[in-house]
């Protein structure tokens, strides 16, 4: 292999929202090999979960990802409820699905915007992010937060969606449908987007099976896996919707799947709201007295694919071990297939096409001396160091 030069992307790069380092080994314009370094965001969440109670773990796992912050509590709730063998109320099921689908819409719009930005098509970026705003406002209305909604708990949800809020939500959904139709039309018919994304970063069915890729990444290669259908949970078996797939396996197919999925999400939300009217208000959770001993495996379909949580309980009030697998963990590994052989400019959009989320993929704070392996600071000392620096800066500013 004649690796003539190396192009580093990251660890801090203006195009990427999170720190990661890709090393593209190039021969002229063509990428011949790719290596990556992760770990910049590793926070030891699986270990932290062992020191928290089940109620606290919800808030912890919600902070794994800032974009799809409800998909982790969703999978965790499914896992714990499986250990307890409980069935939540229908009203809680509908509310859970509504939150999950609203999140899918805002996440897919965020991706569409970023993909446009990666292509150098900033109009798409500005449109998509503008249309995403009303969805975040809805979250604020329903949950009190634009992000990290704290809606889930063992046995149900924390807040109700009162019937008087339903017309407002439906109004925003109508608006979203119109705007997404406009955006889809503009993206699907644009010759520039066609030439930048068709045949770029192709993943075959075999690649998907080999790497175990999930979500829109798999569905764009014709592999119809969707946990909402395959292992139904919450209100998904109670409403009508279909799994969107495409056959191309390229960046265009991934965009197509995500754009069309938003219409399904709107339809799921409308059906859930309709059924919510018939349920008794306030009937949103059941009391769970204890978590018995056992193993629970919970799955949820996040905007990026299957989130998997495995919880080991010994009957105490905190998990003995909590394994988390975010969809990006398996999707990012497919870069080796989608980027090698591409030109440098196509490699960046191929990297973005799986909608990688590094906070999800990595989940300790202590500083060690590299040569001796001795600990220099522990977590508390590192925080103190940071607090002192902020204090010093504030004092300087006052002067």
């Amino acid at each position, binding site marked *: 292999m004649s690796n003539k030069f190396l192009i580093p992307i990251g660890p801090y790069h203006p195009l990427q929202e999170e720190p990661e380092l890709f090393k593209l080994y190039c021969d002229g314009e063509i990428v011949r090999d790719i290596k990556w370094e992760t*770990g910049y965001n590793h926070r030891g969440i699986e270990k932290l979960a062992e020191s928290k109670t089940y109620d606290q773990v919800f808030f912890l796992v919600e902070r794994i990802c800032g974009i799809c912050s409800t998909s982790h509590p969703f999978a965790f709730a499914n896992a714990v409820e499986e250990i307890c063998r409980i069935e939540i109320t229908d009203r809680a099921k509908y509310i859970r699905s509504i939150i999950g689908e609203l999140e899918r819409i805002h996440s897919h719009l965020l991706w569409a915007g970023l993909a446009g930005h990666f292509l150098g098509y900033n109009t798409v970026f500005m449109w998509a992010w503008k249309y995403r705003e009303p969805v975040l406002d809805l979250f604020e209305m329903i949950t009190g937060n634009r992000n990290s909604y704290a809606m889930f708990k063992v046995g149900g949800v924390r807040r109700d969606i009162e019937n008087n809020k339903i017309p407002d939500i439906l109004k925003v959904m109508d608006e979203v449908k119109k705007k997404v139709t406009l955006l889809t039309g503009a993206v699907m018919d644009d010759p520039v987007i066609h030439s930048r994304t068709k045949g770029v970063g192709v993943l075959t069915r075999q690649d998907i099976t*080999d790497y175990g890729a999930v979500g829109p990444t798999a569905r764009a290669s014709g592999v119809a896996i969707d946990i909402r259908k*395959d292992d139904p949970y919450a209100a998904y078996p109670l409403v009508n919707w279909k799994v969107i797939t495409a056959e191309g396996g390229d960046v265009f197919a991934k965009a197509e799947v995500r754009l069309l999925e938003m219409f399904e999400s709107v339809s799921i939300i409308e059906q859930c709201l309709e059924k919510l009217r018939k349920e008794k208000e306030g009937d949103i959770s059941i009391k769970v007295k204890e978590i018995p001993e056992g193993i629970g495996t919970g799955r949820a379909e996040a905007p990026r694919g299957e989130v998997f949580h495995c919880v080991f309980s010994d009957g105490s009030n905190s998990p003995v*071990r909590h394994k988390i697998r975010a969809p990006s963990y398996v999707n990012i590994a497919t870069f080796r297939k989608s980027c090698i052989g591409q030109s440098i400019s196509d490699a960046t959009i191929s990297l973005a096409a799986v909608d990688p989320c590094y906070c999800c993929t990595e989940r300790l704070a202590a500083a*060690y001396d590299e040569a001796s392996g001795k600990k220099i600071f522990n977590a508390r000392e590192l925080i103190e160091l940071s607090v002192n620096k902020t204090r010093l800066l504030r004092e300087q500013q006052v002067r």
Partner: protein
Amino acid sequence: MNNEAIIGELRKKFGNDVLETEEQSSTRLTVTIEPLALLKVAEHLYREAGLRFIIASAIHTKKGFEILYHFSNDETGLVLNIHVILNSEKPRIESLSNMFNASNWIEREMHELFGIDFLNHPNQEKLISEGNWAEGVYPYRKEFKK
């Protein structure tokens, strides 16, 4: 195929290598196997039964190092956990990464955090803490204290 049929098939094919089975629900099944039989059991599940490898979860308990290999049947919603118990003195097991790439990262992660050796792994380098963590210190082991 229901859980009973799956257990029957595994027992018929792998005989005494299947040590124990536990049915959590109609779509959740845990099968404890002899660690030496992992490769042939995984080969059967991936190539013949067409299951998808989701991830593996390791846990350090009194029995030693336990690993659950989670496989998914996307047609029936089944999660099949293949459970192995490894000796705590020298935990080692055959790597699955030569069969499918899906297990490559998680085996590197388990090697890094638990110190479990994956035999014949194509590239057992550190995944998360390259250059930032002391050698031979495994933070997810029970004896680890900060």
